[in-house]
């Protein structure tokens, strides 16, 4: 029940947004979401955007995972 899925905001109209998830457009309320811009990703849960996804942090996590692999190759 605590599932939330990342989707890209394609339109904002007041506290409503259109969010694209894997090619499907969904309407979502922004009433609970910190400020967000078109083009950013949000986590969608039960019809609400509950957070803006930090894409830089996502890249940073992936870089770290790659690094763990590189250390493994050397040792």
């Amino acid at each position: 029940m605590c599932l939330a899925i990342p989707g890209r905001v394609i339109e904002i109209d007041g506290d409503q947004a259109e969010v694209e998830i894997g090619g499907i457009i969904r309407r979502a309320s922004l009433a609970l979401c910190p400020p967000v811009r078109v083009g950013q990703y949000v986590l969608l849960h039960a019809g609400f955007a509950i957070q803006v996804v930090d894409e830089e942090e996502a890249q940073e996590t992936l870089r770290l995972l790659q690094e763990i692999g590189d250390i493994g190759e050397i040792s």
Partner: protein
Amino acid sequence: MKLVSEFRDPQLAAHLIKAMYRTSRRAVSLMEVCGTHTVAISKNGLRQMIPSPISLLSGPGCPVCVTSNRDLDKAIAVARQPGVILATFGDMMRVPGSYSSLSKERAEGCDVRVVYSTMDALRIAEANPHQKVVFYGVGFETTSPTIAASILEAKKRGITNYLVLSVHKLIPPAMKALLDSPELNLHGFICPGHVSVIIGSRPYQFISEQYHLPCVISGFEPLDILQSILMLVQALETGQAAVHIQYRRGVREEGNPVALRTLDQVFEVGDAEWRGLGLIPESGLKIRRKYRSWDAEEFLDLDVPAPRKAPGCLCGDILRGIKNPFDCPLFGGKCTPESPVGPCMVSSEGTCAAYYRYERYRVQDEDRGRRGEVPQLKPAG
């Protein structure tokens, strides 16, 4: 799908598992509190990939499963009231209460509707002004802000026939209850990612400070979970106990202040009854008096018979992490997803349902860790 598929890369997963084999020295028990993590672990076969000294226990983080029979019976009594439409999330429909379930009640003529969002329930209320629409509010901190937002919206739009029956629960007090129980020997927590999107990392601080156990807030893709397990194993091997965030793309230390404010505006903390854990002080959310016009408890005069437990069902023990589904004699025989005896088999996030769907035929290779082998990754089922 962007921000999802990158975190399913089998090559990086293999790196993480190798790193785990290099780091893991002693037997440890880690609990994944959240049901969505339980499903991801089972579905991706992670339990069979990690070194065998690391055991993963499922916790009480499935809101459907921890709803007590008393609270289920209450929702059924509400649905039976004349002039009431009961709206709820789909997961609640087939959960057996003491004597019935919402889907049985619907078959017998009660007006019970499944909604995807509280906003749908508000629309039903607007379209049926002569009926009371009662939303059965079940869920943790991820979901309760959406219910709070619906009450604020009902107030704003002057919708007076929308009511909420709140059985919302809070995760950190349940973790404390587990830690205070002598039955469980835990070494660390994989903390729920989407609850933490809302509450942030600070509410878990007491676990590292008072109980000296490490916590890692984890995302839900296989790489997220594997990295979280590695972070916990590293913390345990070096004797550190702190709260770390693995799911940095979604979780900030302070959580989501907009959602927290909304939650606090509408709800106050109260005691709550949990299946398996009993009454936990200050572990639930009650609607504040200011919003009592939308509180179903204020309006419905309910006569609910004393609750009854399904004989033989071990859900309570499973939710406390002291038993697993294979310990239950009913698992897979008398109890299946088609004909469930307890909620852990009904809910899509229930531990028994996850084991039934994905782990029934998998065998844990106890020698694997000692041989130092890294198993091959199987594609997600």
